[in-house]
């Protein structure tokens, strides 16, 4: 089909894949197949695809705990992601990390992080690597509005500006950090201005429209590749609760309705205005995600002794299992 070459349609497809994927994550939880309930859906934030479309093979990135969509946009296999979220051996991290710690070195994903702000400084180091090896790669840190309150962000932005690193700080402002709306966590809400104060190129993009995000972030992304670090704020809305157990009692139904009206998928459908093509994409995506879901659920859980693997490099000894230690002590006594 010619659709694949059509960038806006392809961005719609990626956004649809993210939305449907996240719906499946919700179902995984309801079926009791997910590893725990700390699952953070990125529904409402799909327009980040406008930014990730400026990234290339070889680029690296880190994400926050709400990073499923970003990784899908960067080429993740949804089956392996769902398997990881379900704590299965077939998952990206062998069932060790789960939803909040998905990573894949090959696809440039240096790791999702459950410490708010934890992954941000890693792009500074990736930027140094890119500079020293002249590999043309950029590195992007994705984080939420909540991380705008973490001191480490400011340390990292300053270093990036000081050393002119090919990096971009991308804040996905979904208006909430858990139950705290951003006006209750920021003394002043001019996030791009904070980055500008450090000497970064900064822009705010409307997360209701993926094409706007794509256009408005182009200069910052290209600037980063030329060694001028950037900052992007994507203005979005968190459609659902913080994690699976959160019913968002701290916000009104009216506010939620208004937030969900700013739906990047609906906006894209309106702009693309090709019902038949869009419905075909939707159907294909549903099929893809159903297959991924079935594959993940059928995947076996890791064998118990795998828990000792990956603490250290496999060429060095793994930690001694407790039962082995106890057995040697107690046998000694006999």
């Amino acid at each position: 089909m010619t659709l694949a070459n059509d960038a806006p349609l392809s961005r719609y497809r990626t956004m649809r894949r993210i939305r449907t994927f996240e719906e499946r994550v919700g179902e995984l939880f309801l079926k009791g197949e997910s590893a725990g309930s700390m699952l953070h859906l990125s529904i409402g934030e799909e327009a980040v695809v406008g930014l990730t479309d400026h990234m290339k093979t070889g680029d690296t990135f880190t994400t926050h705990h709400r990073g499923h969509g970003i990784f899908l946009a960067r080429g993740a296999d949804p089956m392996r992601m769902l398997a990881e979220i379900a704590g299965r051996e077939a998952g990206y991290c062998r069932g060790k990390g789960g939803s909040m710690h998905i990573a894949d070195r090959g696809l440039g994903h240096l790791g999702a992080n459950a410490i708010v702000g934890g992954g941000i400084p890693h792009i500074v180091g990736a930027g140094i690597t890119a500079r020293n090896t002249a590999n043309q790669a950029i590195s992007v840190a994705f984080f939420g509005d909540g991380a705008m309150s973490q001191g480490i962000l400011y340390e990292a932005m300053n270093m990036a500006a000081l050393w002119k690193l090919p990096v971009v700080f991308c804040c996905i402002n979904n208006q909430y950090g858990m139950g705290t709306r951003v006006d209750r966590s920021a003394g002043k809400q001019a996030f791009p201005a904070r980055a500008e104060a450090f000497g970064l190129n900064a822009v705010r993009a409307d997360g209701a429209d993926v094409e706007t995000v794509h256009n408005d972030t182009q200069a910052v992304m290209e600037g980063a590749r030329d060694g001028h670090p950037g900052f992007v704020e994507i203005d979005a809305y968190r459609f659902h609760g913080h994690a699976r157990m959160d019913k968002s009692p701290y916000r009104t139904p009216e506010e939620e309705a208004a937030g969900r009206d700013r739906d990047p998928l609906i906006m894209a459908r309106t702009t693309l205005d090709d019902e038949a093509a869009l419905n075909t994409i939707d159907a294909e995506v549903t099929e893809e995600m159903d297959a991924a879901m079935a594959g993940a659920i059928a995947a076996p859980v890791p064998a118990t002794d795998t828990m000792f693997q990956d603490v250290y490099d496999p060429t060095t000894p793994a930690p001694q299992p407790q039962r082995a230690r106890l057995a040697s002590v107690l046998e000694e006594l006999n």
Partner: protein
Amino acid sequence: MTKTTYRDALRKALLDAMAEDENVILMGEEVGLYGGAYGVTKGLLDHFGANRVIDTPISEPGIVGAAIGAAMTGLRPVAEIMYVDFAGMVMDQLANQAAKSRYMFGGQIGVPMVLRTQGGTGRSAAAQHSQSLEAWMMHTPGLRLAMPATVSDAYHLLRDAMRQPDPVVFIEHKGLYTLKGEISPDPDAPWGQPAIRRDGRDLTIATYSRMLHETLTAAAALAPEVEVEVIDLRCLNPLDDTVLMESVRRTGRCLIVTEAVTTGSVASEIAARVTEQCFDWLEEPPLRLGGEDIPIPVSPALERASIPDAMLIEEVARWLVTREAPSWAA
């Protein structure tokens, strides 16, 4: 007496202390409007207002640092960090600032604050949200450390913590919030001292926090064949070991059960003390039964397997006393 939960006992402790002393303030992420990530502070904002129940940005070092300053200048802050894992972010404020002020400044400036947090496994919360980091706190002179295992202790230890002249780290367990029990009129033991939760003559098991319950289950299963004395340490820094040593001298055997990584743990410290102080009374070496020396994996099956449970405690205890080896040791 009516039953309540660990969560509600904690809330009652905060409520009673705040009603009694207007200098007590709470600060932390989601402690106000949201009512606490685990619901402990629900309703307190309405009771005491935003000057005393302070919702903060996601700025852990800032939260702890601000609490230190408030404590230095006359308030009684109870700061909260949502997961003990975030101690990784606040250890400077905690260990270099709060713990050392009184000493560095020649006794002039105390830091009477409580840092409430919660830890432990059981929710598939993975490597950065499931740790048991009490050893970090125990390794820091100047900090006090309490870890309640029961509903009554949730209340009394928190009340006692808020009366201390020095910083107290107060670590709850995420798996205990729904535990039901009664708040007894008086604490089960004075602040700083362990409580004997079960009498026995064959073996002393020292434990604390959620592992108390696994240990009591194991002890019940072992009786009458093996009679276990179960000691709930409650306060780990400073560690008052008098009761424990008396018990070990009576039983001649000691097993220490914790959920934390075993190497360099509270269990290690206790095993060393038992060896030093009870050497001549010991039938067997003191034994540590703790978490595996690994980060906590997300997969529920692996997570469960990475820490002790009642069955493992029972097997090791029986082996220690009767020499009957469990199947995995054969």
